């Protein structure tokens, strides 16, 4: 799984602020475990990461972060209902074929879910499409033919999907260059962040 969270301390802090101290956390697509290590060291959180990539699994183990090597596409039957306070899917959802099922699974396992993904409606992306080309930007750095982002969506799209699945959005905002964007996030933010629970 790709993750852009690895060495991004400000984003770690922004995400960590949404997670109550001492929470039991499941990080789906946890990458090298940097966020989980941060949550452990600064927020007394416990839990597990799920990651497919060998190198990243080894990085997690080296950090002393609990990691379970698993392809998220194969489901989350490993985890019981309501077994985590928070389930994270940061920069992960857009890589999954079965996005909706995964979102439902997130809501089943966690009391709250926290997702982030590239916002396709960011003005820079819109401009690119207006010019007639698919966007290639910092948050969407790939060409259309080699992108691992097989699901592109916007803040507004996610709200619709969340409603359809009976999820209640607790918080939603955008991120741009490490800054929180609350004003017109669907236009001004390159990354979307949602915190939600079962409605």
């Amino acid at each position, binding site marked *: 799984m790709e993750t852009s969270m690895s060495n991004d301390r400000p984003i770690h802090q922004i995400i960590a602020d949404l997670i109550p101290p001492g929470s*039991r956390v499941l990080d789906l697509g946890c990458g090298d475990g940097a966020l989980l290590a941060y949550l452990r060291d600064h927020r007394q959180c*416990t839990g*597990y990461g799920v990651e497919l990539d*060998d190198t990243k*699994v*080894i*990085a*997690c*183990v*080296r*950090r*002393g*972060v*609990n*990691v*379970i*090597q*698993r392809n998220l596409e194969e489901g989350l039957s*490993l*985890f*019981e209902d309501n*077994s985590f306070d928070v389930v994270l899917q940061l920069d992960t959802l857009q890589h999954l074929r079965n996005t909706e099922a995964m979102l439902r699974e997130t809501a089943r396992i966690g009391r709250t879910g926290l997702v982030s993904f590239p916002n396709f409606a960011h003005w820079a992306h819109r401009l690119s499409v207006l010019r007639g080309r698919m966007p290639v930007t910092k948050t969407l750095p790939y060409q259309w033919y080699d992108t691992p982002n097989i699901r592109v969506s916007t803040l507004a799209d996610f709200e619709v999907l969340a409603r359809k699945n009976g999820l209640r959005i607790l918080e939603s905002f955008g991120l741009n260059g490490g800054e929180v964007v609350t004003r017109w996030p669907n236009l001004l933010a390159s990354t979307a962040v949602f915190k939600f629970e079962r409605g």
Partner: protein
Amino acid sequence: MSTLGVVTPASMHFGTPLSLQSGAVLRDYTLVYETYGRLNAGRSNAVLVCHALNASHHVAGLHADENGQPLPKSQGWWDNMIGPGKPLDTDKFFVIGINNPGSCFGSTGPMHTNPDTGKIYGADFPVVTVEDWVNAQARVLDRLGIDKLAAVLGGSLGGMQALSWTLQYPERVRHCVAVATAPNLSAQNIAFNEVARRAIVTDPDFHHGHFYEHGVIPRRGLRVARMIGHITYLSDDVMDEKFGRTMVGREAGEEPSYSTQNIEFQVESYLRYQGDKFSDYFDANTYLLITRALDYFDPARAHGGKLASALAKALAKFLVISFTTDWRFSPARSREIVKALVDNRHDVSYAEIDAPHGHDAFLLDDPRYHEVVRAYFERIALSLHEQVAPLSTLNGQAVRMAV
């Protein structure tokens, strides 16, 4: 090649009876073991390595001949994993390998004299279980003055012992590394064991397990047992790659000999060779005992089949590793262990290594596999350092403490 150099086995004699799970008692017994590296002053860096079916206490390093010269091909069965600078680094850890009772590599087994009768045990050697082995290993640690293991490590049947350690002596294990193992054997797995046992037991030279006094060895049975075992340790792909349909002494496209008895295919030659080699050094009764220990292992049995309940009392942190092409101890079985640990909120990491070699992969040196183990033990080594970091005075000099 071994980096550990020459190692020497030692033995401990126990006069206190060992009560076995079956209700039988091992009244008097000897256990053979090896150690590598140095036990630190805090006695906190000990790692026990549990052996699988056909292995022993000789985990790493080389054995020497009577002149002290290293014997060729004598390196321990997990020498690629354990030694100075290896994933389990003997510069940092004190590693212990113990030969289990019932085995045929020096510890008391069916080829030894039963003190109650003065005769060789043979088939009368009591059935030993994984739990019995763990109890026996614990006695060795007691004598070595090791209260708590930094880690217990094992693959396959050795992984079962590692798991069992965390349940039988939860307070004595800080970390458990269980590789290519399972929470119990499937019916298919027991079936393979049964075929192997029947091959041995029906060999006319077996003499109901008392072949020693007849001066014979049930070689045919042992050979077939080993052949079937070997098939299950390899993946279909790796067998295809190793042997394919290659014929012995014939070019591709050449006519076969049309014989039902001759060795025709390379794979037959390989299996017969493995079988022959095995029958030279392995004991038939030991094979029966060890496969039975595999069959009986089932920590969930006492918990209504609920593995999560069985693992509730573990206090260790876990690393579980499986290999994608291992069909004898498949990843699905390792995931059962992981799920039961997660259900209990135990610390666990799980690596599923995409290796082509089947069950044998746990003994091979796939770099991803070895890196995971290395990373895990490095982490343990760091925590040891925190625990036993010497106190220092204000001007930075170490405070000497009597331990």
